[in-house]
């Protein structure tokens, strides 16, 4: 790969950069001072001009989202940072918070100023005990040094940040389920409209952004929109953290410009598939993004190109399966995940994931039939775009894409009456995952 200077991971290798002194020593909180001296409308314009798009999966333009917040209303405006990272294969937000917590806080403070927010919340995944500790400590340090609280950074702007922990539910990463959870409810998605920008937390205008998105903001303020948009591609500007896992020699987080080809990311950054094996299937952005194959390895990893190739950039979580891995089994394990995490509110998602699990299980373990493949395709069709949120759509991704590219492998499963792969992943998992959806089982308990 050509020479490239990391942006949001630049301080990862620096000892002590996770403390406020280390952060200040390495350029921290200068962007906040600049931002607090800048008119909020100009900040929004800058972020718009930078082309920054959300890193939580959907790629919505960040500046535009901020601009949706009604100006001059009476209701308080809230900023909520989505730190619930749970998409299988994704582990960038956790590392961003563990290694450079102040970068996130600085981004939050700038965002808060831009949209006129006095109190911001970080919705932290409950299982992230260490990331939460780092953030809590950083918040205390930032208050102590006057970067947060009344008169932040010596100005007349007041900014508070409150960290709030979840309690184990993937669905709470979905922005409206997150809001319900933060309000002390079951994490179930809301009907839209109204969108959170109009009626979000406590029915007030709310900006919700991903950790990586917000962590980028200080750099844009400091170095300018033009600099940022010169990185990456025309429509997918900037850099992205790619999370490499599965069959690669060096799994890990790698920051690279948007539009870096998958082959470069997998082979050059992550060291390629071990033992000279071939890439069989890979996800560009986590389990909710359709599988691609070795024929797609030249796809540039940016929003447009990945979509043109038939998948989605999602969170940039590249999970690699090699030629010895069983795609049916991987699809089964992902589907068990969705069945377990479906909140149960919408019938197509709740029932569809449950039936898909049953079918995939018998295909993998014996008893599968050829018409199961048609049934899976149909169930997927009946789930797509028919739910309050996109969890159900994500669940269809491994189904439809595996049927599309690996139909022969399914047929072979039917023919031999189980898994034909000699050396297959042991994904048989999940007695616990048998339990069905959280919604159904738990609701049953409540109603008992």
């Amino acid at each position, binding site marked *: 790969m050509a020479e490239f200077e990391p942006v949001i991971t630049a301080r990862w290798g620096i000892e002590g950069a996770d403390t406020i002194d280390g952060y200040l020593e390495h350029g921290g909180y200068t962007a906040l001072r600049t931002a607090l001296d800048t008119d909020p409308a100009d900040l929004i314009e800058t972020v718009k001009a930078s082309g920054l798009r959300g890193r939580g999966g959907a790629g919505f333009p960040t500046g535009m989202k901020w601009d949706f917040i009604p100006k001059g209303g009476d209701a308080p405006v809230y900023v909520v940072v989505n730190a619930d*990272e*749970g*998409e*299988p*294969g*994704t*582990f960038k*937000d*956790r590392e961003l918070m*563990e290694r450079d917590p102040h970068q996130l806080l600085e981004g939050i403070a700038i965002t808060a100023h831009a949209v006129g927010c006095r*109190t911001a919340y970080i919705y932290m*995944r*409950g*299982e*992230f*005990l*260490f990331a*939460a*500790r780092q953030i*809590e400590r950083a918040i205390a340090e930032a208050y102590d040094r006057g970067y947060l609280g009344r008169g932040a950074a010596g100005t007349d702007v007041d900014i508070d940040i*409150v960290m*709030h*922990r*979840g*309690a*184990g*539910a993937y669905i709470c990463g979905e922005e409206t389920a997150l809001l319900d*959870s933060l*309000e*002390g*409810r*079951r994490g179930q998605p809301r009907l839209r409209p109204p969108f959170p920008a109009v009626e979000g937390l*406590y029915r007030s205008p709310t900006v919700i952004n991903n950790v990586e998105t917000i962590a980028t903001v200080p750099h844009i303020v400091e170095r300018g929109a033009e600099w940022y948009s010169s990185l990456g591609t025309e429509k997918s500007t900037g850099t992205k953290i790619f*999370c*490499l*896992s*599965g*069959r690669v020699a060096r*799994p*890990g987080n790698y920051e690279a410009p948007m539009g870096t080809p998958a082959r470069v990311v997998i082979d050059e950054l992550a060291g390629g598939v071990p033992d000279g094996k071939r890439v069989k299937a890979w996800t560009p952005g986590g389990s909710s993004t359709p599988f691609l194959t070795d024929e797609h390895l030249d796809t540039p990893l940016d929003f447009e190109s990945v979509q043109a190739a038939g998948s989605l950039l999602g969170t940039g979580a590249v*999970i690699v*399966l090699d030629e010895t891995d069983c795609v049916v089994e991987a699809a089964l*394990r*992902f589907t068990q*995940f969705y069945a*377990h*995490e479906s*909140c149960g509110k919408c019938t197509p998602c709740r029932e569809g994931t449950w039936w898909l699990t049953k079918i995939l299980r018998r295909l993998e373990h014996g008893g599968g039939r050829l018409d199961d493949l048609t049934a899976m395709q149909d169930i997927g069709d009946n789930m797509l775009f028919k739910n309050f949120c996109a969890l159900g759509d994500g669940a269809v991704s491994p189904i439809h894409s595996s049927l599309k590219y690996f139909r022969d492998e399914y047929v072979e499963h039917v023919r031999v009456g189980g898994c034909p792969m000699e050396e297959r*992943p*042991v*994904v048989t*998992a*999940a*007695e*616990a995952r048998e339990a069905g959806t*959280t919604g159904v089982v*738990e*609701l049953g*308990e*409540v109603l008992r």
Partner: protein
Amino acid sequence: MGVLSDDLRARAEELASRYPVRRSALLPLLYLVQAEQGHVTDEGMHEVAELLDLTTAEVEAVATFYTMFKKAPAGRWLVSVCTNVSCALAGAREVYDRAVADAGEGSREVTTDGLFTVEEVECLGACDQAPVVQVNYCSYARVDPDAVGELIEALRRGEVPEPVAGPKPVEHAATARILAGLGDERG
């Protein structure tokens, strides 16, 4: 007799006052109950409902939705094995089976000595360290079956191995105190 002591009730008030709407403190308060009682009990839920002016049914509906609230007694050490795909590719299934076996009788609920609960969990956001095992939400990286066996043996001997980052785990109930938002006072 209340579940929460006077001191904890005061802390609960403090937690509730962090939010413009008190109900937002529901998850933190359920963690507080878990810290006091080891799991989320009926009396605990009842008390939280009173504190936040909710019905017990509303509190139960929430408590049962989230996997980190334990509705039955849990072991002192909650061993969570990720078996999602990236971990599975690295052999998580055998890690889970080994953990269940080595922790001993009843480990899927709680072992008879009260030491362990073993659970299978979804992606823990650390797939580069697959297979990942957490003990009371502190992560251990690249844990093969022998390593999980050693981890369990060490805990049984009263030794707590260093996790991959941050301080060592504390017991399950004490962890719930941290999760409630009362501060992480580990070394």
